């Protein structure tokens, strides 16, 4: 028996192509969305949900969000080329054609509906497609380039994953599901504006009317603090509604106090030193809020 050895370049190329298609889905962003989906499933099940249901909901959730992100690469290829952060993206760099990125995104979206519909239920499938439509239609195509409120309303797309998780377990959407949606919805403005402060020049170069570009650094910092207050208030509503207990309440207050402390420092101090801290902590905050909900519900 003989073994064939492929030249290094030939064997590396398929991997590079796969890597580019994986990059189209923005896996790092999706990982946090899936934390909220899984968290909602554990809370809805008041414990550990069925393992296969969890697996397929994660797969379906990844496909839906990945599809939305791939379509976003197609639509935003003009402005991605003007932002230093995004010039290496597969479509802008010419490694994946725009048409293929669009087809890939649409295929992932359709596959997500099929996976969720067959292995979870059709409400979860419809919600995943709603999230995709909100991200592509409302945020990317409509609001992103036209209003300073783009991320406030567009953030609703990123808040859909907990609804998908909840619906996958229960088959319906009660108040608790909408409270989880709201936690992510009101978390989005302070999270994205902290990032937008850091990337202000990029957004200005691309002509995207993010808050720091339109209203300046000082107002953005004040808005981050104000929306952080609203976010912490909303994080307490699962307790106010009777859906969560003392453990979650103290966790939400402690996590929220750190967020507000960082947002207050950001508002008080000149420069962007605290913007990075606020942005990075916001990622941890959202994950830990959902972990606290899961532990409380168990």
């Amino acid at each position, binding site marked *: 028996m003989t073994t064939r050895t492929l030249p290094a370049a030939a064997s590396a190329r398929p991997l590079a192509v796969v890597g580019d298609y994986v990059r189209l889905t923005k896996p790092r962003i999706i990982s946090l969305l899936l934390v909220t989906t899984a968290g909602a499933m554990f809370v809805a099940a008041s414990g550990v949900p069925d393992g296969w249901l969890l697996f397929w909901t994660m797969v379906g959730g990844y496909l839906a969000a990945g599809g939305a992100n791939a379509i976003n690469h197609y639509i935003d290829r003009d402005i991605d080329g003007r932002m230093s952060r995004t010039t290496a993206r597969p479509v802008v760099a010419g490694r994946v054609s725009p048409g293929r990125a669009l087809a890939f995104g649409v295929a992932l979206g359709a596959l997500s509906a099929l996976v969720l519909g067959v292995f979870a239920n059709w409400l979860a499938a419809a919600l995943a497609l709603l999230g995709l439509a909100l991200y592509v239609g409302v945020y990317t195509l409509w*609001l992103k380039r036209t*209003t300073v*409120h783009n991320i*406030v*309303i567009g953030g609703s797309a990123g808040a859909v994953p907990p609804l998908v998780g909840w619906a996958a377990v229960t088959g319906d959407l009660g*108040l608790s599901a*909408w*409270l989880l949606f*709201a936690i992510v*919805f*009101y978390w989005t403005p302070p999270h994205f504006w902290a990032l937008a402060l850091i990337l202000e020049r990029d957004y200005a170069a691309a002509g995207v009317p993010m808050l720091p570009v339109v*209203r300046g650094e000082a*107002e953005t910092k*004040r*808005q981050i603090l*104000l*929306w952080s*207050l*609203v976010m*912490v*208030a*909303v994080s*307490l*509503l699962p*307790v*106010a*509604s*009777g*859906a969560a*207990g*003392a453990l979650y*309440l103290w966790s939400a*207050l402690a996590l929220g106090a750190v967020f507000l402390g960082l947002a207050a420092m950001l508002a008080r101090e000149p420069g962007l030193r605290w913007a990075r801290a606020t942005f990075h902590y916001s990622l941890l905050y959202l994950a830990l809020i959902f972990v606290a909900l899961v532990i409380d519900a168990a």
Partner: protein
Amino acid sequence: MTLRVLALLLAVALAVPAVVAIARMALAGRDRDAAPARRRLEALWVVVPIALLVALLALSAAA
């Protein structure tokens, strides 16, 4: 005082002043030269999250 009431009072105490300030900033920062339809749409984007917050507070209190 029960845990639920404490959480609700804290939520209202945090949210109300913040929302009032957000609404005032939106009012002060509106583009007076924009077309009426555009101004109405911009106002809607401010009202939607505030209305959702009020609804969630009310529903949580009533639950």
